[in-house]
């Protein structure tokens, strides 16, 4: 499903973000990408949805060689991948429902299907009762759930989460991690980047540990 083959990312002469990274993630896996801030987790995730190009090496995602993927094909490719961030990236001037619907509407989904999908996803994440609330009226955990709803509403094959619990308290963090585990349980491949080793240890899932731009541990 995701293959990194000797991938390096060098931003400038002396600034290396990732060095000779090789790994293979199977369909349906749940993988933690672990490492300190600035270790290269975000760069790694960005390369999966082609927001960043590797300087060396090859990447295959969903049976697609990313180097061969044309610029025009990127939007279609991205619809198969959901992304969630630490800062949620919600549109503050839109309600919860509008934020989620936005992802469907800008990708040309018929209105009838938008309504159906919205109902499904909001029910699943238990957000229906707050669908007219604006992001600033929601707690951090709820906002992240909205971001997850937006990422999931198009039924992606892969869900990437970049420090999704970084801004949340312990209780909400656990809540969000459980949501991600459940999504994985239903068949979606999930990659979650985090700097919290303790969280990872509790979960007993595969972990790629990045340090000094290299993968130093894969278990």
């Amino acid at each position, binding site marked *: 499903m995701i293959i990194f083959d000797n991938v390096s990312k060098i931003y400038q002469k002396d600034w290396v973000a990732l060095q000779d990274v090789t790994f293979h993630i199977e369909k349906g896996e749940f993988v933690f990408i672990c490492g300190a801030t600035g270790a290269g987790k975000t760069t790694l995730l960005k390369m999966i949805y082609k927001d960043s190009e590797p300087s060396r090496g090859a990447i295959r995602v969903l049976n697609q060689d990313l180097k061969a993927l044309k610029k025009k094909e990127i939007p279609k490719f991205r619809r198969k991948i959901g992304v969630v961030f630490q800062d949620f*990236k919600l549109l503050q001037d839109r309600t919860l429902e509008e934020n989620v619907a936005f992802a469907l509407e800008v990708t040309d989904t018929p209105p009838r299907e938008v309504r159906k999908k919205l109902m499904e996803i909001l029910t699943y994440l238990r957000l229906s009762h707050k669908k007219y609330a604006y992001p600033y009226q929601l707690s951090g955990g709820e906002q992240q759930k909205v971001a997850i709803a937006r990422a999931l509403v198009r039924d992606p094959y892969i869900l990437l989460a970049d420090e999704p619990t970084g801004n949340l308290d312990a209780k909400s963090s656990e809540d969000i991690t459980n949501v991600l585990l459940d999504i994985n349980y239903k068949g979606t491949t999930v990659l979650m980047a985090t700097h919290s080793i303790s969280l990872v240890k509790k979960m007993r899932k595969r972990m790629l540990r990045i340090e000094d731009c290299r993968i130093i541990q894969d278990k």
Partner: protein
Amino acid sequence: MSLRIGIREGVRTITRNGSLFFLSLLVAAISLFLLSLFSLVTFNLYKAIEVLDEKIEIIAFLNQRANVDALKENIAKIRGVDEVIYVSSEQALADLRDELQDTEEILNVFEENPLPASFRVKLEKDFRNATGLQEISGKIMLLAGIDETLYGGELVDQLKKVTGIIVMFDLGLLAIIIFSVIFVIFQTIKLTIFARSTEIEIMKLVGASNGFIAIPFTFEGIVQGLLGGIIAFMLTLITYRVATYFFGSLFFPHWWFLLGTIAGGMIFGIVGSGIAVRRFLK
């Protein structure tokens, strides 16, 4: 479908970011007004120069024995002569009385009409200069029945030099204004797009095509250009009305200006937002 959503997004950004939209609309309107005002000045400058140019002519005075019809025909045959108008001595006197108005009694000292008959010789465009005037007036002088010719000569060349400088200055200024207007409008559009960078980022992330992302901004550009153009035209119209009060009649083709400001605004809006969005999309 996608156009409907795109336009809905455009309307949304206009209504939600009302103050920003208003600000950039103001910038567009004022810029277009400046441009249209300066075009008005330029048009009238050219018109004035044209009128002045047409006034360049040779006056040929006839003596008593002249055969008017034959002379007129002969002068008209000279290369560079556009039109020959006969002014009889009676007509000349009447014109002079008109010109003198209240002080026309002065003419009573003459027992008979002192003014000779004359031809007003108008020249073709290429001959309206010192050399042309000299050459043609020389040829006229050779004809029997002509006493004397009168023309501006050097003065005409000096006038041409001055108008030439004014025109160059005007065109230079126009170029600067066009450049600044493009710069200011483009910067403003960039600012409004930057204010919505999160929207663009999310649209990219969830897989909206670049064409789709551009729709709301293009729509906003069109609306802004349309409104900005209309406001600019109205400001120009007001200025024109005030100016005619002071300077008399001016040349102002209303429809062309209305069309020009609106079309200009929309072109700036569409092209500007297109370039700015494209930069954002990399």
